[in-house]
């Protein structure tokens, strides 16, 4: 109770500070703290799977993505071309936003009693999948189509980001070239962390069947471990024209679709798993999907490719 109030106050303070920060760098530092605190709030809401995703993607990858944007935009990130709204307009916007928040808060106070829930149905159907983690069961079996479409969205995002490459950039390595740091603490960390991170990611993926964890969390960790040597200037990402890279991005969704079609042929419904085969099939899809999503997430953080030669 006290912990919840304290946590909520800290989250609200960090969010306000981040939105109103004068400098973009401060805003992003606070945004990373916001993601971290939000993941603790998910623990308090009894959703450890979401807490892991928020910690890995909301705080880690999003923070690094925004930091990269601040750095690449340089002074543009702080001093934009158009003027901020005047005092009166700002006050009016503030009143409007407070109204939106108040209306939403009222809706939360008057949520229906008893709360509608699908938990009993999930708990009843979970044994047929052989899984112990209900969230993984929902993701991979009961709402498998949602997860498939989501994996497709990530692939589409990679294609969209790549198509924003400037003229002459198409096909070259993604992201701005990082200055090499050579020896030193950063290079040491960038060499030592990835092996540990890969082990942790495998652990999180494996326990995901029965305990909190799973492919998205593992994929985000793997992506971060690939980005670390890139950030340190130790490794150059492959050119986006490389066929193996494109194969890696689409392999997971393609396997998912193939298994789904096989289910349609054998069991008569798209994405239906034959009895007794559910768990091994789900685990195989998850392993390949993890690799694909990890590659895609890392490519998304790196951003569109830059032209090889400076203009």
């Amino acid at each position, binding site marked *: 109770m*006290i*912990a919840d109030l*304290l*946590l909520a106050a*800290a989250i609200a*303070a*960090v969010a306000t*500070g981040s939105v109103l920060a*004068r*400098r973009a*760098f*401060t805003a*992003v*530092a*606070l945004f*990373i*703290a916001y993601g*971290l*605190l939000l*993941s*603790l709030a998910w*623990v308090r809401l009894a959703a*450890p799977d979401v*807490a*892991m995703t928020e*910690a*890995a993607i909301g*705080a*880690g990858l999003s*923070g*690094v993505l925004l*930091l*990269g944007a*601040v*750095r690449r935009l340089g*002074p543009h990130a*702080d*001093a934009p071309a158009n003027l901020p709204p005047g005092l009166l307009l700002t006050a009016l916007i503030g009143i409007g936003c407070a109204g939106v928040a108040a209306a939403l808060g009222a809706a939360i106070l008057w949520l229906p009693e008893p709360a509608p829930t699908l938990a009993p149905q999930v708990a009843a159907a979970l044994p047929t999948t052989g899984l112990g983690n209900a969230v993984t069961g929902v993701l991979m079996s009961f709402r498998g189509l949602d997860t498939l479409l989501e994996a497709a969205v990530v692939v589409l995002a990679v294609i969209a980001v790549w198509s924003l490459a400037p003229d002459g950039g198409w096909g070259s390595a993604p992201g701005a070239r990082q200055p090499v740091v050579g020896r030193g603490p*950063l290079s040491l*960390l*960038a060499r030592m*962390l990835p092996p*540990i*991170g890969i082990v*942790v990611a495998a*652990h*999180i993926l494996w*326990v995901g069947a029965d*305990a*909190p*964890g799973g492919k998205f*969390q593992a994929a*985000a*960790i793997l992506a*971060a*471990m690939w*980005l*670390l040597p890139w*950030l*340190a200037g130790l490794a150059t990402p492959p050119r986006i024209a490389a066929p193996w890279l494109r194969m890696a991005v689409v392999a997971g969704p393609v396997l998912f679709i193939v298994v789904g079609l096989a289910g349609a042929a054998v069991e008569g419904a798209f994405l239906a798993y034959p009895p007794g085969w559910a768990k091994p099939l789900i685990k195989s899809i998850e392993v390949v999907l993890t690799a694909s999503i990890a590659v895609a997430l890392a490519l998304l953080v790196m951003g569109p490719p830059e032209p090889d030669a400076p203009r």
Partner: protein
Amino acid sequence: MAEFLSIAALLVFATAAVGLLRVLRGPGDPDRVMAAQLLGTGGIAALLLAGVAMSAPALVDLALILALLAAFASVALARAAPPHDREPPR
């Protein structure tokens, strides 16, 4: 023992949250990075204490993820901090 560990978790978290004032006050980017790092360590410690208190191994896994990602984010923060500390034109 569980009560003691839960209270300790609360206290560690509260301490680290107070350190956030440094992010708002600055004055320089290094101070902001440090406050974020302290919040990360405090959050990890609180999760470990709570995880053992409630015997929830998932919280230890979450702390492991946070430790990895905090290291990753700290590196990015330290790399992205602009070399000169000056306020932009308003």
